[in-house]
């Protein structure tokens, strides 16, 4: 029973992980940028949701669309203003710039929000219900459902809508996309904005299940990276598998080895994957 409970907790956490990684994988696949500031945008989404909850008294789940919108605008602007300068440049330059961005965002967050830990605690925060003997925490379940729903939604958007198809076109053949009326710079900015908007929602959900402070970004970037490597960049469904896998692996590690070893487990998995199948387990990476 304990094992089942731990697996359930791992799956619930894994759904959220998948959503965190989704934006990173999307941007990586289309812009060929490994965005090292991805976690910093997750952190900003968490604070946006936190302030909407505490200052505007908005239910945190209702605050998510606003956090997403704010992060979309921010990401679009960052891409247009900064990243367009290095796009298609050497990988090293984009890593350096996004690393710098992460440092700046984290510094500003610490300046404006202080280094204090915060939690987003709606009245129903402690509510659980029982499912055949297992305890299902309501907030975690809602976060899971939203995360999986958004991931599937993105998948449908990329596959079936005109803008989604244009995004894939740019990532598959830049020359042909240009010849057939697509403006790559616009697509890059929209895609980066989508990536940060997804990060924003993931951050808001993270804040409802975990404590936040300005420094949470780095570890979350790293976890997103692990999941993108496992799941590949082609397909949001791969990211779901990668996220659930990581969530379960971390929960099992916490149970059998100890809660302080969960990060060791995720990076152990990364190293293993890179050794066994550097192109990603489920699909193309870079």
């Amino acid at each position: 029973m304990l094992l089942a409970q731990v697996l359930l907790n791992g799956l619930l956490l894994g759904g959220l992980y998948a959503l965190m990684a989704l934006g990173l994988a999307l941007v990586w696949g289309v812009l060929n940028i490994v965005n090292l500031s991805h976690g910093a945008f997750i952190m900003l989404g968490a604070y946006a949701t936190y302030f909407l909850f505490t200052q505007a008294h908005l239910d945190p789940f209702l605050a998510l669309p606003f956090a997403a919108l704010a992060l979309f605008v921010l990401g679009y602007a960052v891409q247009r203003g900064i990243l367009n300068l290095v796009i298609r440049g050497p990988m090293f330059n984009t890593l350096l710039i996004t690393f710098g961005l992460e440092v700046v965002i984290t510094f500003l967050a610490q300046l404006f929000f202080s280094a204090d830990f915060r939690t987003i605690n709606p009245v129903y925060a402690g509510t659980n219900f029982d499912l055949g003997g297992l305890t299902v925490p309501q907030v975690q379940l809602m976060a899971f459902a939203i995360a999986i729903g958004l991931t599937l939604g993105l998948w449908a958007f990329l596959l079936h809508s005109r803008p989604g198809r244009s995004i894939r076109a740019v990532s598959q053949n830049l020359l042909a996309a240009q010849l057939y009326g697509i403006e790559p710079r616009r697509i890059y900015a929209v895609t980066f904005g989508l990536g940060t908007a997804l990060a924003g929602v993931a951050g808001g959900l993270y804040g409802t299940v975990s404590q936040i402070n300005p420094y949470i970004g780095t570890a979350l970037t790293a976890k997103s990276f692990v999941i993108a490597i496992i799941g590949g960049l082609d397909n949001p469904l791969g990211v779901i598998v990668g996220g659930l896998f990581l969530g379960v692996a971390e929960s099992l590690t916490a149970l059998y080895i100890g809660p302080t070893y969960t990060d060791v487990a995720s990076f152990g998995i990364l190293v293993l994957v890179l050794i066994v199948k550097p192109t990603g387990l489920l699909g193309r990476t870079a």
Partner: protein
Amino acid sequence: MNAPLLTVKNLRAGYGEMQVLYDLSLDVHPAEIVALVGSNGAGKTTLLRALSHLLPWQGDVRFDGHSLQSLSPNRLFALGMVQVPEGRQLFDRMSVEENLLLGTLAGTARDALRRNLERCYGLFPILAKRRKQLAGNMSGGEQQMCAVARALMSGPRLVMIDEMSLGLAPVAVDALLDTLRLVRTQGVTVLLVEQDVHSALHVADRAYVMESGRIVREGPASELADDPEVQRAYLGL
């Protein structure tokens, strides 16, 4: 004769310091098939890249009266000037149908999309059978059909095709040329850039011969095909 659809006057272009095209001029009239032939490295692909604004250039180029100097690639596409690039450049990991859909202007209504798809499937029935297949998994001939069909999806006025015959069996080339003849009767103008001089001169109304970035001969295709100098240099006769 009516006004040209495409006029190129004194076009100069190149890559950085290296100039490739020198004061190149040519005209293409509505519903004509014009061949542009020349040996490797003559600058044919460079010309098409410049015309699609993928390269900076100088000179005077007009499409249907509009000066092209200030138009972005997507404006040109919207005006009805499309290109089938060298090497086909399909979206390899998308289905045939998605490739075709990407050949249309953004905002095209659903029923217009349907009609255009049906028209292209009518021109290339094999593509209808392969509509769900990934473009990258098809044979070279099928891929070239898909590339030409994608270019026709938007109902363009001018189609510029680069090296359509490269690597294809003669029957496949003949089938594609027949299709071009057919769409020409529907008002589509064709600029055919070819190394396969024989078939290009066979199907074209007029032709230009290009060498080292300059036009060296021009005239009715049948005259050029009979010209001893052209025969010696390009037809191996």
